Structures are given as structure tokens and as C-alpha cells.
């Protein structure tokens, strides 16, 4: 009979299956960061003067800032910002989908992301699924955006950020930096200086986006950071659901991913933003390599009755540092945060949310599920701030941790500030361990170890998974299974 330990070792030796590297001819600038680099990126993207000025302002501010080491519950060496390259683009950049390098299409195909609209449409008929429009970002540039015509008919703009800067400068000028200012924090400021591409979405008044929008981020080039920027605006009464996925090859060195996402919801608008983050987590045995995922995500519920929902499934990265937040400015606006964060082997995560209640009757819900296995360290950090004018505001927070094994850690840092007497904040927290008794119970029903763990973990995450769009939920569940392989001993 194979012992549990042997069984686990076999499973643990499986590889990160998205870890392949594609030999694609790329134009990559030499490593290093200076004003010249910023100017180079801006020139490379054919940006107008105002954009360059904004970048430079950010860069100069960044020079005065310090990498956060004191407050996050994370251990990482000081990052050498001169060692990495800030721009890498597969060349040459094509204009339409038909002209995209077939090799690139093959990469996305291998990742299971359809970039051919024809196939995607066929898929619809076959499986009865709703089509998903995809913006594919490969290293520093967007290589393709699908279903643009269908969306344009409704007045929806879905394009790469670079293109938005050129084609829709007024919208970009009006909203960029309005939720996450260029001076916000060390990593957001760095991003503001050197961001390369990302997605831009504008949903006009009263329009309900007819399909899921999605961006798939792929880091391929070596020694390159990825700094994308996403801006989503839902005008009055608009509705949109947006998905984000990411992977990277396996490498020995750490690569930096510092993204900024800004969401703006006007009166009665709804934005649902879902992430399945699966960056390379580093070598499972040594902890070497992996992505440093330092991301700033924030949404502003500017209008009355607006709603922003963040759902994230964070299974990858060596380090995850992100706090998707909501500024609940409009009266009756709603902010939600549903999170599953998994740390296995040597992964570390410090993640959570901020809910800032400004308007009256604003409501927020936080459901955080942290799973730690191996030597993983998982931290929930959250702030619920109810300002004086936010009368009758409500918050509900549920924060659960699940431990697998006895070398991992779960930590919780909730901050609650309530400045009026009519509001209410509730916080519930639990920590549990997948017990040998639960696993044995499953086994006596014929369910093997790995399936038992997946089942227990899925049950634990159910409240979050049900917030994900159907197909993504299935994907997320599988991913969790793969990420947890070999986690119980």
C-alpha cells in the first residue's frame, strides 16, 4: 500500500503546467530605470505629451518613496529596480486579429484562451456558452482584442490602454488617476511611470454589456516586469462583468508585476471584476523564483445606487500584495469583496480590502477565505472605514482561514473605524484545519486523499466561488485543486 507520504510526494512533483516559455522574437529594452526609460516607453507607444508629463511626474515622485517593508506581513529582499527591463514587445505588432503572429495565437491557444472570434463563436453554438471578449496582453503590449465590432455597435469601448490614450484621450484624461492617484503608493506610482499596456473599458449610459469582457495577461520575456494598467468606466445605469487571468513561465529569478486597476461606477451602474491569478508561484521545493505580485486595485462608486464587486481567486505568485477596495461615495452604493487566497510551499500573501463608506446607507460585504499549506503564509488585512456622513452604513465581514499541515500560517489584521452612531459593522472570523478525521471520513466513503482535499477546500470556498461567472468558477475550482496538490501530510 503506498503510504500517504509517498502519494503526496508524487503529487507534489507535478509541474506548474503554464510554465512553458515561448521563443518569440521580441524587442526588449536593456534593464534599467531612469527618466530616459520612461521617455522611451512613452515614445515607443506614440503617446501625446500630456501622457509623458504624467508619467514623469509619477517617476519623480517615486524616487522619493520607499518600498513598503515595515507593515506588510511579507518577507522579500529589496528589489533591484535597475535589474529588470521595463519594456518587451513581441515584434512586429500587428493591427488586426488576422495579422497576429500565429505563434502568439498558439500560445494563447495552449493556455486555453480563444483569440479567434470565429472559433469562439462556433464554441458558443456548440456549448451554449456566452462568448467572452478577450484582450490579450503579452509582456508589455496588447496583442489582440476580440469582439470589438460587436461591442462597438452598443457604443462600448474595449481596447488596449495604449490605444485608448491615442483614440479616447478625453476619457483617459478625465478618469485615469482619479481613483488611484499617481502618488498613491510605491508600486502604483512606479506603475504610473512605466506602465506599458492593459485594458480600457467604457460602457455608455444605460448599456448592459452583452458579454463578459476579459483580459488575459501573460509574462513571457525574461528579466522583465509587467506593469499594466486597467481602467473601467461604467456610466449611468451601465453594467459590466470583467474577468482577468494571468500566467507566466517558470523561472529562477523573481519577476515583478505591479499593476493598477481603476474602476468608476456612476449612478446606478454595476461593475463586477473577477480575477483568477495564477502567476508562477516559484519552485515548490526551494521557493526560488516566482512573481512578485504588487497590485493596486480600487473602485469608486461615484454615483447613487452604484455597485462594485471584486471577486478574486489568488493561487499563484511568490508574493501577493493587493487590496482591491471600494470608495462608497454615492448614497446607497454597495461594495463587495469576495476572496480566496491560497498559499502553498513558500508562497506569501498579504491581501484583503478597504471599504470606505462616505455616502449615506452605503453597504459593504467582505468574504475572505485564506488557505495555507506547506510553508505558505497567508494574511488578511482589511479596513472598514465609516465616515461621519455615512449614516446608516452597514458592513459585514467574514474572514475564514483554513490550514493544511502545521508549518503554514494564517494571520488576520482587521481594522474597523466607525465615525457615526447609526452605522453597523459586523466581523466574524474563524480558523480551522483540514483534519485527519475529515480526510479519513471521506476515504471511508471511497474518496481518495486528493479528491477529499479538493472537496473540503471547495466547500470552504463556496461562498466566493458562487460569485464567479460559471465557467470561471469551474476553472478556479480546478486551479485550486492543482495548486493544492501534495499539501497534506
Amino acid at each position, binding site marked *: *500500500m*503506498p503510504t*500517504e507520504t509517498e502519494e503526496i510526494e508524487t503529487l507534489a512533483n507535478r509541474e506548474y503546467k503554464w510554465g512553458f516559455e515561448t521563443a518569440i522574437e521580441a524587442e526588449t529594452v536593456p534593464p534599467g530605470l531612469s527618466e530616459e526609460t520612461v521617455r522611451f516607453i512613452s515614445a515607443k507607444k506614440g503617446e501625446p505629451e500630456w501622457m509623458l508629463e504624467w508619467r514623469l511626474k509619477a517617476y519623480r515622485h517615486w524616487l522619493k518613496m520607499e518600498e513598503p517593508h515595515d507593515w506588510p506581513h511579507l518577507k522579500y529582499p529589496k528589489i533591484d529596480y535597475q535589474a529588470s527591463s521595463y519594456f518587451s514587445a513581441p515584434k512586429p505588432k500587428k493591427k488586426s486579429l488576422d495579422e497576429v503572429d500565429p505563434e502568439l495565437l498558439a500560445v494563447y491557444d495552449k493556455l486555453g484562451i480563444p483569440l479567434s472570434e470565429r472559433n469562439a463563436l462556433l464554441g458558443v453554438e456548440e456549448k451554449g456558452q456566452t462568448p467572452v471578449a478577450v484582450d490579450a496582453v503579452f509582456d508589455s503590449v496588447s496583442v489582440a482584442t476580440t469582439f470589438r465590432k460587436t461591442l462597438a455597435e452598443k457604443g462600448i469601448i474595449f481596447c488596449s490602454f495604449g490605444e485608448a490614450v491615442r483614440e479616447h484621450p478625453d476619457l483617459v484624461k478625465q478618469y485615469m488617476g482619479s481613483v488611484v492617484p499617481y502618488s498613491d503608493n510605491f508600486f502604483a506610482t512606479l506603475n504610473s511611470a512605466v506602465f506599458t499596456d492593459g485594458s480600457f473599458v467604457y460602457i455608455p449610459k444605460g448599456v448592459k454589456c452583452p458579454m463578459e469582457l476579459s483580459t488575459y495577461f501573460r509574462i513571457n520575456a525574461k528579466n522583465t516586469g509587467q506593469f499594466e494598467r486597467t481602467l473601467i468606466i461604467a456610466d449611468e445605469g451601465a453594467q459590466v462583468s470583467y474577468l482577468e487571468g494571468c500566467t507566466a513561465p517558470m523561472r529562477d529569478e523573481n519577476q515583478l508585476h505591479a499593476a493598477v486597476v481603476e474602476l468608476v461606477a456612476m449612478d446606478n451602474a454595476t461593475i463586477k471584476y473577477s480575477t483568477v491569478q495564477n502567476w508562477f508561484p516559484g519552485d515548490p521545493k526551494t521557493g526560488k523564483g516566482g512573481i512578485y505580485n504588487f497590485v493596486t486595485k480600487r473602485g469608486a462608486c461615484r454615483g447613487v445606487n452604484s455597485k462594485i464587486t471584486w471577486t478574486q481567486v489568488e493561487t499563484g505568485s511568490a508574493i501577493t500584495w493587493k487590496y482591491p477596495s471600494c470608495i462608497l461615495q454615492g448614497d446607497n452604493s454597495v461594495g463587495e469583496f469576495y476572496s480566496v487566497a491560497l498559499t502553498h510551499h513558500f508562497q506569501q500573501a498579504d491581501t484583503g480590502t478597504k471599504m470606505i463608506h462616505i455616502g449615506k446607507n452605503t453597504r459593504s460585504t467582505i468574504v475572505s477565505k485564506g488557505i495555507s499549506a506547506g510553508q505558505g503564509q497567508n494574511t488578511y488585512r482589511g479596513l472598514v472605514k465609516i465616515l461621519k456622513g455615512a449614516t446608516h452604513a452597514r458592513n459585514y465581514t467574514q474572514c475564514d482561514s483554513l490550514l493544511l499541515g502545521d508549518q503554514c500560517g494564517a494571520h488576520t489584521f482587521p481594522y474597523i473605524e466607525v465615525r457615526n452612531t447609526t452605522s453597523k459593522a459586523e466581523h466574524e472570523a474563524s480558523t480551522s484545519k483540514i*483534519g*485527519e*478525521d*475529515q480526510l*479519513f*471520513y*471521506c*476515504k*471511508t*466513503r*471511497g*474518496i*481518495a*486523499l486528493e*479528491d477529499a482535499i479538493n*472537496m*473540503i477546500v*471547495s*466547500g*470552504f*470556498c*463556496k*461562498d466566493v466561488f458562487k460569485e464567479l461567472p460559471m465557467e470561471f468558477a469551474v476553472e478556479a475550482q480546478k486551479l485550486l485543486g492543482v495548486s493544492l496538490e501534495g499539501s497534506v501530510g
Partner: protein
Amino acid sequence: MALLEIKNLHAKVAVAGGREILKGVNLTVNAGEVHALMGRNGCGKSTLFQVIAGRETYEVTEGSITYEGKDLLEMSAEERAREGVFLAFQSPVEIPGVSTDYFLKAAVNEVRKHHGEPELDAMQFLKLFKEKRELLEIDQSFTRRAVNEGFSGGEKKRNEVFQMAVMNPKLGLLDETDSGLDVDALKTVAKGINTLHQQDAHRALMVVTHQERLLKSIVPDFVHVMVDGRIIESGGKELALRVEQRGYAGIEEEVRQGV
């Protein structure tokens, strides 16, 4: 060939210097038989069941268990389950967020896959669950709830027997399934167990109980009394009555005096 043959079974808690709990158990169970296992708390009854079911927190140091002629100790816990060994737990654990329906579908399909049978579809499950629910008089809402989560003690026990009914094992090990049940619940559960026993003349049951009362409803072919990790006395159903009258100490005394 016996369904289950236990010979000189010794087992200890699987840690360095772990306490020996089973100290030479011998027992033969044939297909279709009902065995009752009685004894004081801590005498090793539950441990025996858990060792049969394959719990790795116990280490078998000596002896053998043969099941349908195969070495049971060579099989993993899940293989034993798929081969038809079922343990109804004394204190079943909760699995939050996983519905009983979903859990049991996975379980049944694992067994079917193991035997090269096609997996059941949703309709077939619906039918199977309905039939077994009726047998144990449980409501449909019951199986939609997460496994044992927020269940009362009685509901948990009922759920164990329901699972056994669905899994349709060859050997059912019922660990104090009667404890914590009120009179009515006990009747229902006993009726359920009896029906399961009658439905399949080859199914064998082993029942751990402290109450002779249960053995009035589920009539055993054999009764065993366990003391300190060994079976010291075996007999027919009348042995349960002797235990009831004289207590375990009385039986021990009789055995010692060679009565």
C-alpha cells in the same frame, strides 16, 4: 470462505511509543451474519472498527485481516470502502460547504468506477436517494445541507445509516449508531438497518452497542464481549442479556473462573 477473518490482531497508536490498544483480536464474520460487539468504553471496539476501515493513526503491529480472501491491510482506506467495507462513525465529522448529495454522488461513483461500472447520472441519483430517504424517513432538505453541518446528534447518526444504505456495502460497521437517539429515532434507524440487512442476504453487519435494547431490534447471530483489547467471550444473542444482567465485570469474572 469467510467474508472477514481477523487473526491475532495487535494495533497501537501510530506514534513512537504509542499505546497498544488491540492485543490479539480473533474474529470471523461470514456473509449475511450480524455480530454485536460489546464492552466498556476504551476497550478497543471503536479502534477495531477504525483499523478495519483503514485509519492510519493506528499501526497494526501483528496479526492479519483477510477480507474476501484478500489481505485487507494492504489496501488503502478508500480501496477498502470501494471493495464494500463501510464504517458508520460514532461521531461523524462536518464538511462545511459540501452538500450531502454532492458528497454521496462522489462516493457512489468512486465505488462504481472501481468496479468498472458506468457512473450514475443525476436522474438515477435522484431515484436512489429518494428510495433510501424513505427507508430512513428523512426529508429531502436533509441531503441538500452540508455534510453533518449543524446536524443534531441524532441527525448525524441517521445520516450515517442513510449513507450506508446508498453505498450498499458488503460489510457494515456500525459504531454506536444507537447512542444519542431518542426512542422513536432508534426505532426508525433500527428498522432501516434491518431492512438493509434483509434486502441483501449476503450483507454482514458488525454493531458496537452498549444497549441490549438495540439488539432486540437488530437481532445478532453472534455477540462478543471485548475487554482490554481482546475478545474474551463470544456467544449467541443470549450473551447480550447476560451482559445486561451481570455487567462487564460479571462476564470477566465468569470467564476468569472458567464458567
